Every structure is written in C-alpha cells, then in structure tokens.
C-alpha cells in the first residue's frame, strides 16, 4: 500500500507504531495530535526522550534503570544486602517499593523464560545474579516473577539453580486480588491462595 502521507508524517506514524501497545490507528491519532500542538510541547517530548536515552542506563549490579553506575538501591548502605528480590522488569521494583514491606536489594532479570519463544536462562541476567551471591553475602532470594506460566517456569529454574548453594529461596505467595470476588477466582489462583493461607489473629 503506497503511503498517502508526505514522508516526514509517514515516518512519524511508523515510529510511533513500533511502540508497545500502539496499533496503526493509534499511531496515526498520536502523530496528528503532535502535529497540531505548539512546537514547544512537541520539542519537550523529543528532548525528554533523547535525555532519558542519554542519561539512563542499566545498573551494573542489578540491571535496574539508573543514571549512575549503581542504582539508588545498590548504592544505599541502609538496604539489607542479605536479601535479594528477583523481578522480571525494572517497573516491578516500583510496585514492590510502593508496599514499603521490603528493605533488601533487587535483581532485574530483564525478562522471563519463554520456552515457546526460545528465551532461555542465557538470555536473562541469571549468571549475573549467581555472581552476586557470594560477594554480597546473600542469604535469601525472593523470587517475584509474574504469576503466569513463564514466571513460574523462571521461578522453578531459579530455585533449582539456587537451592544447592544453601540459600533460602522463597516465592511470593500468589493469591486472590484484594477486592476480587471468590466466585470469579480461577482454580489455580484459588489453590495457590489456599496453600499460602495464614492464621487470623
């Protein structure tokens, strides 16, 4: 299909369309919105993107996004280095920090194992996790991968790799979402919730 737009507009639509969750229609809508807004507004967005790309990189230790060699959690001495919470993506750290329940350090795998897509342990930051354990005196690893098939497979693989090293390996309990109805809970979720039950004080 030949493009009906002039090349700069088509390029903008194409680039926007490559973003996650943006289909061709949304790309078109956003592109025309950007063409309509004042030049200052559009340039601010362009600058924000290029500054973020310039200044933000991965923490050398935990692969969280960072603006320095080490991220804020890795360079903060008050964090407990004997516990590492393993997550799939840096954005998961934000969710866990919001709970205020965790005072240890993090490790970002940058994905999860997906056998059907050929994504194995080598494609994730698992070797890097193993190399942190001794030097940092890690005693417990909490596996906080997503409660879906890929996340479970990743968790089981990590448990198999870590347990022989004498570490405590725990998995976050996956249970019922607060505010959800029992009636709508699927069997797997309900089963896990029952396994993770606790006494009522």
């Amino acid at each position, binding site marked *: 299909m030949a493009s009906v737009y002039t090349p700069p507009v088509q390029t903008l639509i194409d680039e926007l369309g490559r973003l*996650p*969750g943006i*289909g061709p229609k949304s790309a078109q809508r956003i592109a025309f919105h950007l063409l309509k807004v004042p030049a200052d507004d559009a340039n601010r967005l362009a600058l924000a993107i290029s500054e973020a790309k310039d200044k933000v990189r991965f923490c050398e230790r935990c692969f969280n996004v960072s603006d320095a060699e080490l991220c804020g959690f890795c360079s903060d001495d008050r964090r407990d280095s004997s516990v590492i919470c393993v997550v799939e993506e840096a954005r998961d750290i934000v969710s866990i920090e919001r709970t205020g329940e965790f005072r240890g350090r993090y490790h970002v795998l940058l994905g999860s*194992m997906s*056998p*059907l*897509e*050929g994504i*194995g*342990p080598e494609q994730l930051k698992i070797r890097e996790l193993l190399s942190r354990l001794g030097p940092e005196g890690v005693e417990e690893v909490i596996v906080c991968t997503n*409660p*879906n*098939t890929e996340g*479970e*497979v990743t968790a*089981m*693989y990590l448990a*198999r790799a870590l347990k022989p090293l004498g570490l405590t390996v725990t998995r976050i309990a996956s249970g019922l*979402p607060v*505010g*959800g109805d029992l009636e*709508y*809970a*699927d*069997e*797997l*979720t309900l*089963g*896990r919730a029952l396994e993770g039950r606790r006494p009522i004080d």
Partner: protein
Amino acid sequence: MSELYRDVGVVLRTYKLRESDRIVVIMTEQNGKVRAVAKGVRKTRSKFGARLEPMSHVRLLLHRGRELDIVNQAESVETLAPLLSSLDRASQGMAAIEAVDQLGLEREPNPRLYRMAVGVLRTIAARPAALNVPAFYWKLLSAEGLEPQLDACVRCGETEPDVQLVSIDLNEGGVMCRACRSGGPISAAALAIMRDIFDGRLNQALALEESPATHEVGALATRALEHHIERRLKAVAMFERH
C-alpha cells in the same frame, strides 16, 4: 458474520496485544486451531484469571470474527496446577504443546490432535517420565501417517536375527540392516524402546528411567518431527541442554 460458538480446547500459546489483552491460540476439539483475543486477561483482576495460560484445558464460549475470534467466557476443565508443580513437568508440557501448535491447522477440525494433547498433558501431570515427550512426538508422527517400520529392513526385507538392524532413515520409512544402511545409527536398546512405543506397550516405555537409550529415542523423535514440520522445535532444545 457474527456468531457465538462453544468448544473445549487446550491453550497452546499466547501473545501480548495492546495494554492488557492477549491473543490466545487454542487447539479446540471441533474447530481446529483457533486464534482468539482475550480482553483484559493480563489485568490482575481479569475474569479469566490463569485459565488462558499455555497448557490450560478450558471450556470456551467464543465469538467468531473474520480473522480473530473473541473469548467471551472460559472455564477450566482441569486445573493447571500439577503441570506447574515442577520444572520437569512444565518443560515437558511446553515441548508437547509446541508440537501440537506446529501440526494443528487453523479452523481445520482435528479432534484427534486435541485428544492427544489432552492425553499427553494428563500423562505429564501424573508423572514427568523421561519418555513422555519423545513417545508423544512419535505418536504425532504416526498420526500423520509417518509410522516407521521397525521389524524388518525397509530395503531388503530381512529380519532379526538373520541380520542386525542398525540404522533408521525416515525418508526410507524405517530401520535398515548393516548392508543397506542409510540415515542415522540406532542402538538395539533404543530400537527396543521404539517397538514398545509403537506396539502397544507405551506404559512399559514410560516406566523407564532416564538412560542413554531414552536420550537416543528422544533425539531421534525430535529430529524426525523437526524434519516433518521443516523447522526447529524451541522448547525441547532449551531443556535438553540443562
């Protein structure tokens, strides 16, 4: 063209779509392989919960669309929990459904393939036997009309003990003696296991512990299926290395 239909199926794959939706690929009993959109499935509070994860066996209400159908309702036929209870089970289950995905044709009814998928997942859930996946691959090939001849040399027709059957060549249709041999070598122990799989002694084969012979049968099965579908299988390779 808007119609509702019911079916049962095994979820083979999922692909992320937009913010919180997924495309789910399902091997159904009556409608062949179906691609359908599950809306909101990635939200923690989705009504679908974990029911549309790969390997799930589900009863579905679907809305037929032009390219993609839409999942209206999904309930579990059996729980996924046993398949996610160990790494061996999960990896075997993945290797099994990857093969089903490769062989199933879209919207072309294949109730037998659906039943085989359900059967192998139940077998794996019960016990992660060393030969679950290789035996399943061989059964799939045999359902495709590619059952190897294992009792006599495919070229000269000689049988044991007159000759020793030492190689297997699926292009030729089975095993061969030393004089006729082509394809790859096969050991006597592996040949005995293959005969168990094809001659109605599957349970005997599945009772075997991991050994060089079970690895040989596994490698042969993977190679044969890859040759048939003309592409590499990803899941089985990932866990063979570990």
